[in-house]
């Protein structure tokens, strides 16, 4: 690949990837239903939300305390909230960033967009498997998914998706189609999004999570270049460049700036009950998706 031109990348799902995603979604659904969560007391009050009692789940900060299962807590069952049929069938929105910077990674490693697309598809599958509805937003538009049968459409919408432009996914937060989602998951490199705006947009929703997908050269630059070598950093979206000698001190400052940026993201997401997961391009999607769905760090 000619390094003078910005990298280009397309999403390519390997054969059998659909089955892999389906099995992951089923495993996640089974993990959600613990024996304690299956317990339902006849004297239990009606769940706070309207609708049929559908089970329990672990309490998360921000949950409505009216749904708190005090009986289970009194019995030493831990902190749980009651679920109604409407809650278990949540409405999710999965927003995928396919700007030009998501193509970074090639040729030595898979591009960021590949893992991002796999995570998006996996999260769509999990949401559908849980009985909910998912809105998948990409550069190609918004795809409404209502059942597991729509997963193939989602896969078709993501396959061949090309990285281009610098739009990012911030405009999707204001879109009417995604305003009804109770949970929004943004997947991208998060470089062009101000974390302070995240809380502003997520205030209308119950929860917002984010998955930050970074290329290896962005996570550990010294691992990809020799210390002391002269490097010209180029931004594929703006065309700007910066020439510098890559040394230990410079790499340490870069890592500190990146860590600070992620701390700001975590703080913003925590205010709306969300999590930030950092994933490395080229990794399998399962651990990162599982970490996000668990609601705690691995």
């Amino acid at each position: 690949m000619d390094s003078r031109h910005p990298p280009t990348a397309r999403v390519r799902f390997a054969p059998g990837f659909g089955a892999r995603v389906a099995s992951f979604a089923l495993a996640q659904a089974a993990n959600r239903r613990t024996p304690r969560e299956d317990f339902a007391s006849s004297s239990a009050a009606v769940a706070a939300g309207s609708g049929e009692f559908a089970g329990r789940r672990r309490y998360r900060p921000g949950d409505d305390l009216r749904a708190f299962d005090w009986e289970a807590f009194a019995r030493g069952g831990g902190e749980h909230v009651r679920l109604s049929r409407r809650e278990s069938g949540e409405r999710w929105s999965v927003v995928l960033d396919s700007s030009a910077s998501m193509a970074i990674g090639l040729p030595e490693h898979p591009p960021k967009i590949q893992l991002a697309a796999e995570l998006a598809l996996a999260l769509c599958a999990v949401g559908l498997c849980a009985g909910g509805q998912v809105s998948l937003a990409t550069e190609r538009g918004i795809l409404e998914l209502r059942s597991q049968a729509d997963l193939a459409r989602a896969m078709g919408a993501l396959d061949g998706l090309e990285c281009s432009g610098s739009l990012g996914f911030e405009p999707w937060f204001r879109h009417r189609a995604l305003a009804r989602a109770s949970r929004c998951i943004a997947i991208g490199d998060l470089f062009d999004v101000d974390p302070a705006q995240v809380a502003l947009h997520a205030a209308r929703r119950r929860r917002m999570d984010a998955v930050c997908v970074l290329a290896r050269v962005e996570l550990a630059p010294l691992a990809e270049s020799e210390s002391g070598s002269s490097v010209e950093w180029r931004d594929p979206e703006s065309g700007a460049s910066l020439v510098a000698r890559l040394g230990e001190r410079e790499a340490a400052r870069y890592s500190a700036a990146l860590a600070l940026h992620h701390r700001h993201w975590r703080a913003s997401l925590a205010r709306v009950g969300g999590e930030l997961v950092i994933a490395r391009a080229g990794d399998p999607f399962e651990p990162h998706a599982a970490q996000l769905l668990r609601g705690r760090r691995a």
Partner: protein
Amino acid sequence: MNGWFFARPEALWLLLLIPLLGWLARSSEPGLPQWTGALEFWRRSLEPHAPLGAQRRRSLPASVVAALLAVMLAILALADLRSIPAVAEPLHWRLVLDRSPSMFLPASDGLQDTPRIRRAVELSLELCERSGVEPQAREWLTFAFDGEHLSRGARPPEAWLDRGWGPGAEIPWQSLDRPEHVWISDCEPRFAASKAGIVQSGAAIVPGAVADLGARCLVWDGKQMAEQPWPSAREGISLDARLPRDIADLATLWAQARELKRVEADQPACLRIACAEPLASAKPSEGKVFGP
């Protein structure tokens, strides 16, 4: 005037290569290109206090700067920087001519007819030629009983070289010991010169007593030294009757100080003081002390 100049100024055009080389070095500096979405984070890490989005000026590494400096110094060396030698100011000499009686004795180079004064003047002219003293830059000075005599020109006045022009007076050598002064004499004056130059004609020893041994003296007869008693004439001096009284008294005192008697003109004497015919141009002098 002191200053600097380049012997090969055309080599200075090569200095134009330096910015060109610097531009080439900067344009070839990038090295390994890396695409990243975190360019702003790199900019912050390289310039922690730079505002966001600020453009960072690329600087040349120290090795490239040192190489360009070495190229610049090499070009200056090729241009051959030199200093302008100071222009020497023309020489002006004052040549002091000794006209004491010994200067009119024959010179010692076998030319018996050439007096010492002429020989010394010729030697001084040779010195002026060798030193590049232009004729108009030569000033001749001598002392007579009527005071100083000054003349400019390539040679001293011919009259000065004639004994008949008049006796020479005592020269104040000490006051004339200065740069750009040359003493012309037949031997080294009693006062040693430290700044002035000396031209000596040289000569053989004048036959006669050369050393006082008390009752005897050492006499040079022109060929060898001999010790002999002082001639009886040593005991007296002869004074011309026409001498002014004060001069005769002074001479008498001088003789007495040396245990010499005054004798008549027809008697043998070791010293005779006579009145010479006055020069037509001679000025009367008053109040001047002269003599050995």
